[in-house]
């Protein structure tokens, strides 16, 4: 096995330190929101996790396109890494959102466009993993994975649009705010510091995890190749 790069070890330590700092900033440093109280602090990690999840899926679709165009195996490994990362972080996003929604919307769940879309994204990429599981031939598995990642990526915005035709209650904190949204608020300067810091932290954690996952994927390929040699 190739040696672990120095930079990756640096990323490992940086992720841990950043996460500790971000926890301090969001849980202690950031002021308490006037209307919602302590539960608003979920917001910082909620948005950050969603952001990293989206990056993961974006990595997957770009890798899918590159795989189909070039046929190089490394793009398949990167795509799978992106999707696994996206699945985990989107799940964190949904769970933290639910925790926030219980006191603010008075329900764990509502059929709002963003919530449904996030869930559909999870289902699409779980289906992706099941598709991969059902195919033994590695080349075909990679090709079908890339195709399905692209199809899913094109379909998800349309799901969002199709529900968006109804109105939404999900708040939009960054950019313009919808007057119909429940639980919207303005960020103060200290909140912004905490928010952007946790965004940065999660991005670093995401990069670290993807890197580890790619190395793991390469290792799994080697194991598979060795197994074929033995048979």
């Amino acid at each position, binding site marked *: 096995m190739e040696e672990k790069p120095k930079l990756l070890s640096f990323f490992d330590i940086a992720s841990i330190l950043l996460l500790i700092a971000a926890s301090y900033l969001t849980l202690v440093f950031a002021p308490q929101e006037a209307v919602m109280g302590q539960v608003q602090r979920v917001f910082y990690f909620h948005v950050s996790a969603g952001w990293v999840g989206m990056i993961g899926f974006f990595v997957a679709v770009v890798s899918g396109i590159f795989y189909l165009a070039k046929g190089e195996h490394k793009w398949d490994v990167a795509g799978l890494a992106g999707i696994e990362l996206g699945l985990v972080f989107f799940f964190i996003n949904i769970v933290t959102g639910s925790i926030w929604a219980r006191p603010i919307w008075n329900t764990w769940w509502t059929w709002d466009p963003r919530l449904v879309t996030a869930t559909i994204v999870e289902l699409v990429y779980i289906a992706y993993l099941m598709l991969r*599981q059902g*195919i033994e031939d590695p080349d075909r598995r990679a090709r079908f994975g890339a195709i399905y990642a692209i*199809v899913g990526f*094109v*379909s998800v915005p349309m799901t969002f649009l199709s529900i968006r*035709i109804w109105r939404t209650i999900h708040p939009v904190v960054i950019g313009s705010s919808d007057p119909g949204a429940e639980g919207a608020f303005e960020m103060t300067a200290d909140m912004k510091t905490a928010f952007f810091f946790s965004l940065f932290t999660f991005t670093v954690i995401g990069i670290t995890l993807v890197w580890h996952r790619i190395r793991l994927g390469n290792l799994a390929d080697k194991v598979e190749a060795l197994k074929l040699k033995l048979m």
Partner: protein
Amino acid sequence: MSLNAETKARSTQGQTSFFKSMWAIVWKDVSAEWRSRELFSAMLVFALLVIMIFNFALELNIRERNEITAGVLWVTFAFAGTLGLNRSMAVEKDRGCLDGLLLAPVDRSAIYFGKVLGNLIFMLVVEAIVLPIYSILYNTNLFQGGLILVILLGSIGYAVVGTLLSSMAVQARTRDVLLPILLFPVILPVLIAAVRASSYYLQGQPMDLIQPSLNLLMAYDVIFSAVAYALFDYVVEE
């Protein structure tokens, strides 16, 4: 003949051979089906059974019926559709017909669009039988221009994506189980828009309420035809 005219002649020849081979595949599917009626009868009986189940599960009484007819119809079409898609691709795969098709010197996309058209025809025929039966059983008139347009647009989107995904699903170990799992999350926009538009039509709502859903259906059909056209080559490439 000038060079320009020659290329033009060649491209028209290419076009005719594209439509010819596409048509040949549609014809093959339809005539094979006409002789066995395996797929069609399975889809139809299944669709009728689903409607029966809905009748008892939802207590389709006269007041609620108008609001949920659209939903019942689309769930029925979607379930019956997966049955058809699975079968139509499994037949190609099992007897090695797909390899034969791929060996033929025709454009791969002609094969894809031929299969799409074949699947679309089966779906439309099933729908054309289910609609009058539903109308009679529940005493609602489903023969309205708008509703039929929605059904056509929705079925096109369904067949376009379904054919692409079923051609992948048949090559997997868990193929019968896999197709609905792959298909339903990506077909959701079609189902949402189609149910909404159908139900608005049935309730006689004004056109500006229906238009966004219709636009979405059309956009979906166009976008996914292009995406599937670009990707199908990679599905069958060996």
